């Protein structure tokens, strides 16, 4: 019944292997502790059963060294697991530079994937082996969660903001993709697969897609059609923030705070322009809520990202 799918257990991503080492360690440790307590319970119950001849003289009221031990040793072990786990966890939040970015749009009940060159797929994600892949994900409706068990990777996908998840596949094959956050009637039907291909095969697959504009190019087209360029082009007479080199920069806001111009910031600036006004500018930009769908936003953001550094 496992047609085409690899067996579930072995990890298939770089971080997945690191997670598994920790998992194994914690499993052995907790297994030993559980076993030790079970043995103590059983041995004491049998040895000190009512009527047995076991020695009951001088029952201890307080054994200080034992108490100190059973507090400090677990504490030290816990802190050890905590430190180890936090190190691995922080790597989940640090996508490597130059990761291949793929856009994911979750909706009840499907995964819509869009590659940088415009190739799209539904409920399938093709990625190359050995290259870091960063997913830029958002949801069109409720909260979903992108979960690939063999990558040991999971990230909730929220509406209204962009979540990031990265992994580097270490094994070619097909891996199950699940929605892990309950999202309504067909939640359990919101699954798909991640197909890891050798880099050359992947390049061929990517190029063979139906001809469609590159994401950033489509973004530029929307940028002009919706009139963004009227204010935001450097040549414009309207006093509006320059978008060249914006992405990834620190932006100073009118309320004195600072934000990093990431995907969610750009999205909010388009849909909720008054939420974060850049210092020195009047809040004159109209909201584009209802005029742009999630795909348009993805394209626009891709366009702005493509102009991250001045040419």
């Amino acid at each position, binding site marked *: 019944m496992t047609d085409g799918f690899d067996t579930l257990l072995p990890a298939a991503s770089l971080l997945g292997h690191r997670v598994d080492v920790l998992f194994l360690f914690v499993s052995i440790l907790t297994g030993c502790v559980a076993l030790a307590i079970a043995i*103590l319970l059983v041995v004491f119950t049998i040895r000190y059963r009512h009527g047995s001849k076991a020695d009951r003289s001088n029952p201890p009221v307080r054994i200080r060294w034992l108490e100190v031990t059973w507090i400090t040793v677990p504490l030290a072990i816990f802190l050890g697991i905590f430190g180890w786990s936090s190190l691995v966890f922080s790597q989940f939040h640090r996508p490597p530079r130059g990761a291949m970015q793929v856009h994911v749009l979750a909706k009840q009940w499907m995964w819509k994937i869009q590659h940088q060159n415009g190739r799209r797929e539904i409920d399938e994600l093709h990625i190359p082996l050995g290259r870091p892949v960063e997913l830029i994900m958002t949801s069109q409706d409720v909260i979903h969660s992108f979960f690939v068990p063999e990558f040991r990777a999971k990230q909730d996908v929220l509406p209204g903001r962009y979540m990031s998840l990265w992994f580097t596949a270490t094994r070619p094959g097909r891996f199950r993709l699940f929605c892990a956050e309950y999202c309504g*009637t067909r939640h359990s039907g919101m699954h798909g697969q991640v197909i890891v291909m050798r880099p050359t095969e992947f390049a061929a697959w990517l190029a063979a897609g139906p001809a469609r504009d590159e994401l950033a190019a489509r973004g530029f087209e929307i940028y002009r059609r919706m009139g963004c360029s009227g204010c935001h082009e450097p040549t414009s007479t309207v006093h509006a923030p320059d978008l060249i080199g914006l992405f990834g920069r620190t932006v100073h806001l009118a309320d004195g705070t600072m934000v990093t111009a990431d995907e969610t910031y750009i999205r909010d600036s388009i849909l909720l322009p008054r939420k974060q006004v850049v210092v020195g500018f009047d809040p004159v930009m109209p909201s584009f809520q209802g005029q742009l769908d999630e795909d348009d936003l993805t394209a626009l953001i891709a366009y702005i990202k493509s102009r991250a550094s001045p040419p």
Partner: protein
Amino acid sequence: MSATAADEVRPDKVLHEESYLREGFTLRSWLLTRDHKRIALLYMISVTGFFFLGGSAAALMRLELLTPQGDVVDAETYNKLFTAHGVIMVWFFLIPSIPATLGNFLIPLMIGAREVAFPRLNLASWYIYTLGGLFVVATLIAGGVDTGWTFYTPFSTLFSNTHVILAAAGVFVVGFSSILTGLNFIVTVHRLRTPGLTWFRLPLFVWANYATSIILVLATPVLAMTLSLIVFERITHIGIFDPALGGDPLLFQHLFWFYSHPAVYIMVLPAMGVASEIIPCFARRPVYGYRMMAYAIFGIALIGFLVWGHHMFVSGQSAYASIAFSLLSFIVAIPSAIKVFNWTATLYKGSITLPAPMLYTLGFVGLFTVGGLTGLFLAATALDVHLTDTYFVVAHFHYIMVGGTVMAYLGGLHFWWPKIVGRMYPENWGRIAAVTIFIGFNLTFFPQYLLGAWGMPRRYHEYAPEYQLLNVFSSCGAAILTLGYLLPLFYLVWAMLRGPRAPANPWGATGLEWQTPSPPPKENFSHTPRVVRGPYVYHPNGPAEPQA
């Protein structure tokens, strides 16, 4: 078991006349009673009803999950089943189970009081509970709700077209019953302790329920506010949680878990209290490290308020927040570990007998330990990324709440059944049920740890075929578990009507509740008891020394 029964020589007739059960036989005498013991029985009947209602939802789910395809019920019904199961079991069974039944019955008896501080309020709590229950029953009759017991937004506010408002109203209402019970217990413990009963002579059952009451009073209002905000957003479409309206869905999760994580301790602390009464009694040893046990209860209650973010490691909360919550989650495990070690140490050099209450309680210690240790996996951020929202989490919290709390509740029911109804339960049936439940429980839930580790997400109506074998194990276990839970229902009721009469102190226990007849008279004690020593002066080779 009746080695110390000789101290009870009163004729049955006298017992009968004094008993709180004989104070009136009309429906009115029950429904308008202010006797904490009768209110405890009202609660017992209600929570038992909801336990079996919630249990039948689970049974249907396990039936559905026998095969990977959805064949018994459709997806929407399945979603409504797990929602009903969660809502009913959490708010209408687990939270009131030990405090509102055993706590209500025993706290005044254990502290030598005639009543709780506010008897009318106590009755009102039960009516409020019943009203909340009616809302939930109405929700089920109207067609159910499909949000999951967690009511995650924006699904619950703008996407679900089931009866969210009705269900939320039920939970909102029942929360007030929790708050009032908690308030009542706090004042009772502060004001009504009998002379000589200092704080550090209180039985640990009272400590545990006292700490639980504090959590109930502090945390439950946050749940009420959160549910109100859901209803508000659903009705007015003003954005609080839905980003499409300018709201923040993570805000909901923070508010919800700020209540619902402490709620886990509301469910498990009273169970720890029960275990701390039963183990010393049947080991004939004072509980090891009494003060440490009391401090541990408070440590858990306090730190339990600071770990809610461990439900949100992949939710999109900041990684730094996740790491801080992870650290606090490891720290909250320390007092729980201390308690397990202390229970184990209490057995050392004891004189141990194994009647049904002790079997249930040893089962509790074992299953709670497994539940607690697997909690370490989930406290570890990097492991939680993989395990959260899978069956691993389902197995973990069922080990704590069912393996832990339900086992302890049943242990407590057997232990105090002679006191409550004045008759003994059939010992062999009690032991058979305890063993059946232990086996059925492990067969049901241990495979779910493996399913989760292998990546099966929770709340799945259909699942990938490779998960079937373990699901079949789990469903078979559920069948055994069902049988195990039905047994006490029958023999405990039989014992109430036909069991042999119980002496005042069948177990030779030390607590004040055993110094008065079984069942106790309406006013609990004929003379106000004067406490002269701590709660667990047991000796392996001699009679125990009662507190008064």
